[in-house]
């Protein structure tokens, strides 16, 4: 059984005990424990079930590479699925539950999959569930879905906060082991700005566990001294609990800091996403030990040799009283020594090599531990935990030579450098025969903006496993030249790659050798994939799901690759590796979204009158990032009722509209007229000062993109109004042409949209209201239709435009935004006697539709030209050029056969459905109904007391009086007559009074 040792544990604080629960069971651990070490200390070997076969799973590793020990962490809104116990720091009150089983961890119905495993090889689902066709959707897929998926999603919104932050440095060092710290120290000494990130809560990495002596002292001393030195330097930033997730182009590195993961609910952000810009990155990310593929290597109690050592040394946790070591290298002998030192028993070291006599081997032998060469494990015995191993010759086919009772197996298949960050942005790898691993190829690094190397790997991440080499490498990579600290490390003999144990294992055994623990991919599966022609490593990965689990193959990739290479009789480097994709370990989505939630999810643009609308029954409509009143409801009113009331009131009395969102761009300069003649389809240079003109803007393709009223302010200055939400786009469009095409023209623009609140005063009493406010002459004579004037209204400086988008007598008043609310409230107060009511965008739409005015985005959709909308009058024939002119000359746009704007009047007075389309007789070659027109805007007109609509109809204006049929989506047909699109006041008398 696994238990807490009486002494030791360099990372735990025995004075601070933490209670926690696992599957509701109360357990105890210490500050400094990981959840994994605490579970082991409580003899919780079984921690989960695998993805496919629901096999019992125990803790294999001690760090980010752990594939098995994932839990649902926390409860309620703070539930977090798939939390890796080996990287979860223990905190008081932690509650964890195991995943992927039903009804319980100990008794899981899903384990039936294990019993029929031989019917479920890799890719079995591609070959079956084919008949009958409907069965996949209704029968098989639901079962597969329900059985997959590991942890549960929370059911409530996340109560925690997240944030992001930017950092910049000359050198980013990823990894706080001795390589990273040495690299940082060297670089910082040159004055460089250095940031060091360490994903765990501790500095030093593996060296202190591995008995390394630096400058004659245990590595812990050197680590403490170096961290102290770095902390004292102003040009160095050290961050623990901060995992570099991905390396992106031009030195951009994402890192996730666990700020309050271990102190939930303390008010700090749970996580912080760092967006770091580094001139150069050093990855000192170490190496990951590989499991050995032998039958039963997934039974709880089989662990990585390094993990066994970590649990003993760091957390004083014994994984078992009797630990069999199985290895192909010298490093695992350190585990034998650690186990022995802890007072536990090593019944045997099974070494697959035929020779082993390095310093460590000799030391183990001298401790009286049996070392057996050319030996491997034929099979692990046990179910929910290890009870023993059957020993065989590595060179053989698995004949059992001996059986050893034990409760843990420590395995080591050699070490693979952590090359993920090196590879994210294109760094290439080379195969290292001696270590049987891929390591960074210094000749082909990822490059940055200037073509120089962006990343350098150092230490174990660079394929160097000896501490003396590691420190020298770090100094070199950081640009230093001095001697490395003196390191004492035993001499190690070469490892010998073992990709299958025993090397001649039978099919029976191969079907029990796990490569990917979480996804249940075995040696036999990879061999099957190769046999079926899924020869590319990417095919094999995708066919078997090898390496696609939440650990992203940290333990399984190289072993799987080697098995594939073996099956194909190809050298490993020729088979290649799969692509490493960010993130290194999974990153919380909330952290990626950062602060952008709730109120600050997106900027919400508010006009100066926003709060007034909010206080007066507004129903909002999002328009770009703005929010505009759709209508103002009164108690008991529906939105439709409110719109009707607002329309009728504006036509009969007086309406007030917040039009502040309209774009307002000033264009000034000697060439401004000439420039606007290029921007607009009609002529703006001839507009007299003091006058307004409606203008259309097309893109270079000829399609209508914006419209608005242009006012000439002075001889060299025009003010261009754009659609709501169009201001930034149109301003950018103007600047684009000015800066990139006509840069010698003397024109300046300024986007003054937000400088002014703009308020439309609309209706028969509009003039009376302004006269009551007082300050300027707004009479017909002083301010005729399509003119503007400047002055003061209600004591506020104002510019009044005599324009109308409703067909009524109407003014648009621009006042400084800071006085917009005051002006609005003055209007409301003064307008009471005239029956003033504010109205929203929907009433605005109805009013304009009654008048046959088009709306950008309704009558246009990016494929409509002004001529389609009978706006040919606003497209100059005289001008030699304007943006869009050449585009409109193309055959399809110039064709007389286009759909054109008409009014549509239903025969029964009903409202045509939005987006309705009129079919034409017959079908096209693809069996679709032919069409001849569509509705672009449709409303109930309270003025006319019937439905009115506009639409684009094939040769529409030539077909006045014809009746079209519009099928409805819920059945039935609406008949509508083609009519003039101006439904109200065709002569335009009301607006010009």
């Amino acid at each position: 059984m696994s238990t807490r040792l009486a002494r030791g544990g360099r990372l735990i604080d025995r004075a601070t005990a933490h209670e926690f629960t696992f599957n509701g069971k109360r357990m105890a651990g210490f500050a400094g424990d990981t959840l994994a070490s605490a579970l082991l200390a409580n003899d919780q070997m079984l921690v989960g079930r695998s993805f496919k076969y629901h096999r019992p799973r125990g803790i294999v590793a001690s760090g980010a590479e752990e594939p098995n020990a994932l839990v649902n962490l926390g409860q309620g809104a703070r539930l977090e699925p798939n939390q890796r116990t080996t990287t979860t720091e223990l905190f008081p009150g932690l509650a964890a539950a195991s995943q992927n089983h039903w009804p319980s961890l100990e008794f899981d119905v899903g384990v039936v999959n294990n019993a029929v495993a031989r019917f479920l090889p890799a890719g079995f689902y591609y070959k079956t569930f084919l008949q009958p066709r409907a069965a996949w959707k209704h029968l098989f897929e639901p079962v597969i879905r329900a059985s997959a998926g590991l942890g549960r999603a929370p059911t409530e919104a996340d109560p925690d906060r997240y944030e992001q932050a930017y950092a910049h440095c000359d050198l980013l060092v990823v990894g706080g082991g001795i390589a990273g710290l040495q690299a940082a120290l060297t670089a910082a000494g040159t004055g460089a700005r250095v940031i060091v990130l360490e994903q765990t809560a501790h500095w030093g990495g593996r060296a202190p566990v591995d008995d390394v002596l630096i400058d004659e002292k245990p590595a812990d001393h050197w680590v403490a001294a170096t961290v102290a030195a770095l902390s004292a330097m102003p040009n160095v930033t050290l961050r623990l609990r901060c995992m570099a997730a991905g390396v992106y182009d031009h030195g951009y590195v994402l890192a996730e800091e666990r700020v309050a993961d271990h102190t939930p609910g303390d008010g700090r952000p749970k996580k912080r996403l760092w967006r770091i810009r580094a001139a150069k990155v050093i990855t000192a990310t170490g190496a990951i030990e590989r499991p050995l593929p032998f039958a039963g290597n997934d039974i709880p109690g089989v662990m990585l040799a390094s993990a066994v050592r970590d649990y003993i040394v760091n957390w004083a946790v014994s994984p078992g009283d009797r630990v069999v070591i199985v290895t192909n290298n010298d490093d695992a002998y350190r585990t034998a020594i650690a186990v022995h030192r802890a007072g536990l028993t090593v019944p045997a070291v099974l070494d697959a090599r035929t020779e082993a006599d390095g310093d460590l081997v000799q030391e183990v032998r001298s401790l009286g531990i049996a070392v057996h060469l050319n030996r491997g494990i034929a099979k692990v015995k046990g179910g929910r935990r290890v009870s023993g191993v059957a020993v065989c010759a590595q060179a053989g086919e698995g004949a059992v030579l001996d059986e050893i009772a034990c409760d843990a197996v420590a395995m080591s298949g050699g070490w693979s450098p952590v090359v993920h960050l090196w590879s994210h942005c294109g760094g290439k790898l080379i195969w290292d025969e001696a270590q049987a691993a891929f390591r960074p190829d210094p000749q082909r690094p990822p490059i940055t903006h200037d073509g120089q190397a962006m990343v350098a790997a150092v230490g174990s991440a660079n394929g160097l496993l000896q501490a003396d080499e590691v420190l020298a490498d770090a100094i070199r990579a950081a640009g230093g030249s001095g001697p490395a600290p003196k390191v004492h490390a035993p001499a190690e003999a070469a490892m010998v790659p073992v990709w299958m144990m025993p090397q001649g294992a039978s099919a029976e055994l191969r079907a029990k050798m796990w490569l990917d623990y979480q996804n249940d991919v075995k040696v036999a599966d990879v061999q099957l994939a190769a046999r079926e022609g899924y020869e590319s490593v990417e095919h094999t990965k995708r066919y078997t799901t090898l390496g696609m689990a939440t650990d992203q193959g940290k333990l399984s990739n190289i072993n799987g690759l080697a098995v594939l290479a073996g099956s194909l009789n190809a050298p490993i480097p020729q088979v290649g590796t799969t692509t490493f994709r960010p993130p290194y370990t999974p990153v919380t989505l909330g952290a990626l979204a950062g602060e952008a939630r709730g109120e600050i999810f997106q900027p919400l643009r508010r006009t100066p009158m926003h709060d007034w609308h909010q206080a007066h029954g507004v129903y909002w409509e999002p328009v770009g990032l703005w929010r505009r009143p759709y209508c103002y409801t009164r108690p008991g009113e529906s939105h439709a009722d409110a719109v009707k009331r607002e329309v009728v009131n504006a036509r009969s009395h007086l309406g007030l509209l917040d039009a502040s969102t309209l774009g307002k761009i000033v264009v000034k300069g000697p060439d401004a007229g000439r420039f606007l003649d290029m921007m607009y389809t009609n002529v703006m240079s001839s507009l007299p000062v003091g006058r307004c003109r409606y203008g259309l803007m097309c893109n270079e393709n000829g399609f209508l993109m914006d419209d608005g009223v242009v006012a000439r302010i002075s001889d060299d200055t025009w003010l261009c109004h754009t659609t709501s939400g169009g201001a930034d786009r149109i301003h950018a469009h103007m600047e684009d042409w000015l800066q990139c095409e006509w840069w010698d023209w003397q024109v300046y623009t300024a986007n003054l949209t937000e400088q002014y609140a703009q308020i439309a005063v609309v209706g028969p009493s509009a003039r009376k209201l302004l006269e009551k406010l007082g300050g300027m002459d707004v009479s017909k004579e002083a301010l005729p239709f399509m003119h503007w004037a400047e002055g003061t209204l209600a004591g506020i400086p104002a510019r009044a435009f005599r324009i109308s988008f409703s067909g009524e007598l109407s003014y648009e008043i621009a006042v400084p935004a800071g006085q917009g609310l005051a002006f609005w409230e003055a209007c409301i107060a003064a307008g009471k006697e005239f029956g003033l009511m504010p109205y929203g965008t929907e009433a605005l739409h109805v009013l304009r539709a009654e008048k046959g005015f088009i709306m950008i985005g309704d009558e246009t959709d990016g494929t409509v030209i002004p001529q389609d909308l009978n706006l040919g009058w606003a497209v100059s024939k005289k001008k030699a050029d304007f943006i869009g002119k050449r585009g409109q000359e193309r055959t399809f746009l110039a064709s007389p056969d286009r759909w054109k704007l008409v009014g549509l009047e239903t025969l029964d007075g009903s409202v045509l459905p939005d987006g309705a389309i009129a079919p034409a007789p017959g079908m096209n070659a693809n069996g679709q109904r032919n069409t001849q027109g569509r509705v672009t805007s449709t409303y109930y007109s309270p003025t006319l007391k019937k439905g009115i609509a506009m639409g684009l109809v094939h040769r529409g204006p030539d077909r006045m009086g014809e009746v079209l049929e519009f099928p409805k989506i819920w059945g039935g047909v609406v008949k509508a007559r083609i009519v003039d699109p101006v439904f109200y006041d065709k002569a335009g008398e009301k607006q010009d009074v």
Partner: protein
Amino acid sequence: MKRYSVFAIAREAMRHHTGWERAWASPLPKSSYDVIVVGAGGHGLATAYYLGKNHGITNVAVIEKGWLGGGNTGRNTTIIRSNYLQDSSAAIYEKARSLYEGLSQDLNYNVMFSPRGLLMLAQTHHEVRGYMRTVHANLLQGVETEWIGPEQVKRLVPIMNIDGPRYPVLGALLQKRGGTARHDAVAWGYARACSAMGMDIIQQCEVTGVRQQGGQVTGVETTKGFIGTKKLAIVVAGHSGQVAEMAGFRLPVEAVALQALVSEPIKPCIDVVVMANTVHGYMSQSDKGELVIGGGTDSFNNFTQRGSFHHIEETLRALIETFPIISRLKMLRQWGGIVDMTGDRSPILSKTPLGNCFINCGWGTGGFKAIPGSGWAMADLVAKGEPGPLAAEFGMDRFREGRFIDESVAAGVAH
């Protein structure tokens, strides 16, 4: 070709699955073919498959510079839908969707087409009107879609926050028979079926030149030598421009990076595909339990298969706002794909200035869902030398004429 079935599995289980055949052969190229398809992605393989199945042309090679299905076929978000607005788009995507329905049986390979339903959320009044237009169009196009209200949306997707606050859900366009399929399986299934018809799928074979005589294509130079052909189909999303250049013409296409990501696997929590265009995000849950999430595209030319990460942040903000429960889940893996973008964002299936050379490209971010329809139409074009009805509107000449197939309502670009 040995057929796949549950009985075949049972038989093989008894002998440790040692009797399975190769899914497709890996031959060396012959000296010439009737048709060479460049690109063994979904579109290229489907082109070859329907050349054989519909037109009896089986002396075909599909050549691929990497591994089959390794481009965008293997790196998309697997969504299948046909609720398009324009007639020509709806026709080809609906053809594809209907072929997907029977594809597993047709290929004897389970591509796991899962018509789990697809929702496009309307979160502004403008969007409501836009989708109403699509529903009406689909009605006349024979594409089954419907408009549903917010309560129905909530019933279909209980984890969705339909009350905003920023963009309350006003309704949705629902295509019940839209859904997802297993993307790799589509390529593998077509490859296996092509191979069974005697076609050669030649991987690790990069085209380095296009040979022509008298304005007609005669073959391709490759890293495995010259291969002659009577007809050439270029179906290489992402690198279309490079191959077209070898054939002597320029395409109205730019290559940009599109991004996607998956979360860690969790127990089923969302059964339909949801697309939210106002806030820019879409999401579905795979059979493995991963949330499959689509990000945005960069707007600059890029061939690196790495995109700019800020698009992913934007997408996740939007999705967390829409599905607040996903905030504590984790991103497992993110990646980019290189997609072709044309001037109207619609594909090109076209004859080219080079005789007997045909091109299929420009699918932008929507290629996976089109694979069977695209292959069907392309096979028709290659076999007959002239586009059939499905491809008729997708010719390259439409840009010169201004005859766009524009599915977006975005204003065009200046310059």
